């Protein structure tokens, strides 16, 4: 009798578990992101995820992405105070995600363990780059270097050799021909300023950055403008450009070239679900999809690299994936090579405002004098 009861209870429990699973699997029919990641990466992944949702759950998913620079996105999430208008925050520095988690504005990731376990905890030496949150609030989605761009035709006209490393941007003939975005406005620029400062030390680093300021012809309002103004030939070279942004201009038919110097910082483009999100299941499902082979393949066609060693950027000859490999210097996976990273994010976050302040004083305010 007791045994029968047990069996019954077990059967009942497994039934309700199954029912629970079925419910859990059903996702909401809406999903919105706030993201500094450009449309060219968010649109195709969202579109393919909507297709995926239709196939898997037979749901017509309405997706939208609210484009906002990292700082704006972060600021709006703070302003929402736990009653967010969107479900997901995608992109920017992982340190900001940690800050949000501390303020209880993120929901813990609820996706299969295997998907997260496939991602190594860190990459790079001597300083490790975290690819996922040990506490489980965010995970990296793709890898992408912040490098430099140039227009070969404009350089040829100026008689300047094609740059290979950061220092080549200080070529005297490039005076007035370099584009960059202020570190106070752009997270990719800020990270690359730190790369220079941590490579050369503060004194020499600021000297270097001032010389770059002297060569600069435009401080763009946003980091995304840097590759665009170079692609159109308005300026010859650009500093601190995420690889996929440059690749989009290449895909749009411009003759832009990209180099990731050895010391370039590589970002994992973190993603997290906001606490209090209206569509948490759809949000978790989207993250799981992004980490799956299908999601990673869609992203890889856009000039970013897989977040796990399981995949490599590869496609038929002439495919977008192969174009991306050629464009980003022949690398198929950052797990194939030894990643050099000298950028210490804790150090950078610890003096974030100080660096902005010094930039404003020594470069932004003094720009007219520097140019002379």
């Amino acid at each position: 009798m007791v045994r029968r009861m047990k069996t019954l209870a077990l059967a009942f429990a497994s039934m309700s578990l199954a029912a629970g699973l079925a419910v859990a699997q059903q996702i909401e029919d809406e999903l919105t992101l706030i993201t500094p990641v450009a449309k060219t990466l968010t649109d195709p992944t969202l579109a393919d995820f909507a297709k995926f949702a239709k196939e898997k759950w037979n749901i017509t998913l309405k997706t939208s992405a609210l484009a906002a620079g990292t700082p704006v996105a972060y600021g709006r999430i703070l302003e929402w105070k736990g009653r967010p208008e969107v479900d997901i925050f995608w992109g920017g520095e992982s340190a900001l995600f940690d800050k949000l988690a501390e303020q209880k504005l993120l929901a813990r990731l609820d996706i299969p363990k295997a998907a997260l376990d496939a991602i190594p905890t860190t990459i790079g030496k001597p300083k490790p780059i975290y690819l996922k949150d040990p506490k489980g609030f965010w995970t990296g989605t793709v890898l992408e270097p912040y490098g430099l761009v140039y227009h070969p035709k404009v350089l040829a006209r100026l008689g300047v050799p094609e740059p290979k490393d950061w220092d080549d941007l200080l070529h005297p003939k490039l005076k007035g021909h370099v584009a960059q975005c202020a570190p106070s406005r752009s997270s990719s620029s800020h990270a690359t300023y730190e790369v220079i400062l941590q490579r050369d030390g503060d004194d020499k680093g600021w000297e270097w950055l001032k010389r770059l300021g002297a060569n600069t012809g435009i401080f763009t309002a946003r980091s995304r403008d840097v590759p665009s103004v170079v692609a159109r030939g308005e300026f010859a070279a650009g500093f601190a450009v995420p690889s996929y942004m440059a690749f989009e201009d290449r895909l749009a038919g411009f003759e832009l070239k990209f180099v990731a110097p050895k010391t370039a910082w590589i970002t994992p483009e973190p993603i997290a679900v906001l606490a209090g999100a209206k569509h948490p299941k759809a949000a978790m499902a989207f993250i799981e999809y992004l980490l799956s082979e299908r999601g990673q393949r869609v992203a890889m066609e856009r000039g970013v690299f897989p977040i796990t060693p399981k995949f490599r950027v590869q496609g038929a000859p002439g495919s977008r994936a192969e174009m991306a490999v050629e464009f980003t210097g022949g690398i198929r996976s950052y797990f194939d090579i030894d990643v050099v990273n000298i950028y210490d994010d804790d150090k950078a976050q610890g003096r974030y405002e100080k660096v902005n302040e010094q930039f404003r004083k020594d470069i932004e305010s003094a720009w007219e004098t520097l140019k002379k």
Partner: protein
Amino acid sequence: MKLPRGSLAVLGFVLIWAFLILFILFPLTRIFYDAITNEAGQFTLGHFHDFFTDSFYLRSFWRSMVLGVAAVLTTSVIGIAVAFLIVRYEFPYRKTFSYLTMLPMILPPLVGVLGFVFILGRAGTVNILLMDWFGLETPVNFMYGMHGVLLVETVHLFPLMTLSILDALAKVDPSLEEAAQGIGASGWHRFWTITLPLTTPGYISGALLVFIWTFADFITPLVVGVQDLLAPQAYLNIMQFVDRRIFRMGIVISALLVVLAILFVIAAREYVAIKDYSSLAYSRVERRRLGPVKRWLAVGLLMLLMIVCVIPQVGVLLAAVGRGWALTPFPVHYTWEFFHAVSIETPKFIINSFVYAGLALILCLVIGVPMAWIMTRTRAPGRNTMDALTTLILAIPGTAIGIAYIRAFNFPLPFIDAPLTGMWIILPLVLAVRRLPYTVRGSYSSLLLVHPSMEEAAANVGATKLRTFRDITVPLVWKGILVGALFSFIMSIQEASATIFLTLGGWEMIPFGIFTFYIAGSHSQAAALGVILIVVCALSLLVVNRIAGTRVGGLFG
């Protein structure tokens, strides 16, 4: 229960005031509150102290003033010349030009400067031609710097000046000038002593608007790499939310922009308050026929001006149909894909624009026409304050209003438990508030034209109130109301600065789309949306022009 007629009117009056207080005064006080408190909510003047002791901000402030004055000068020269030609002289295609010279005004934000860069940038058509054909080595810098901003603002804003002057000129009684001529005053003397003083009010109100628009424009300077101006500083500081101190400075600068706008309006209050339209019945002006040489000279000058004015339109059109256009005078590959992408693939920009601007238009009519009626037909208290408010709205920068809204309406509303900032209705609301003055002024001037005695006469012969309104009032005032409302619509559908901070996913209107495509690096998609918006606005403007001719200057001043 039947309310007595009087109380119904009182109710309407109270509702209008409630709207004005809730959606204009309340949010504005909120940014002032932000500007004089710290994060902990304690009173401080430290932010202003920081601003006025910071050499970079002070330089931005100074340069903004210089730019504003420079724009007033350039638009004055062009605007006055065009106005005089059109009002006083007869020459071929005069009417066509009177429409064409209004067109630059409807260049949507960002589109104008983008178009200019495509044609006059360092790798723009002109420089490429100079380099390819004449072996020029370094490109001429037409755009990057203050001069580029000035060029864009001049082309964009001179029609405001033209319209204000046209309006004033058309009301100058020609007999005054004839009298002056009769006693032997020479042309220039007559101009200085008679015409100029009479057109001064129109000119001042035009100049004030040009100054404030230039002062408040943040997009144009940013595209050409000028950041040390006040409006771009406000925008950039607010756009980065991380550093709360810089963010607070952005709000402080916005508050400062509002204060300055208020001061300017007060300084010019005699000229910018709703004018006495006693001579609104425009005097018939005898146009002088120009001799054959002068005639074609006038046409030539206007043609030249028009060529400069269409540079941005040509630029965005080429960018909208050109693929991978760089370092060639014209695109090499042509495509419709960008138009397809922004209209058929994602129709939301166009749909949202019409829905929200349409709702804003209805709101403008519902609020604005009764306001005009109160100002013309009643002695209700607070009429002058209403007038001052509508003038003020014209002067307050859009970014300041956007910020004010996001700060003021971000609390959960009673009963619905959701903040207004989370509901799309906030967009039509902010648009209606921003563009209300055009409807008010359009309605005001036409209501003035209908003398109450006409309505009384109808009533005397036994017409009911409704019939009087239908048969007498409506036929006489609909044109003015329509023109004002259409202007509200045009300006709403182009609005970007106030909505940029308020837009959430799914609410994107065309200007926001232009902006996001631009910052996503998709300049061709941005250009395609720009072309669509220009066409919509040009058609609306054509309707306005057909109804009202060029007599819309009073809407602005």
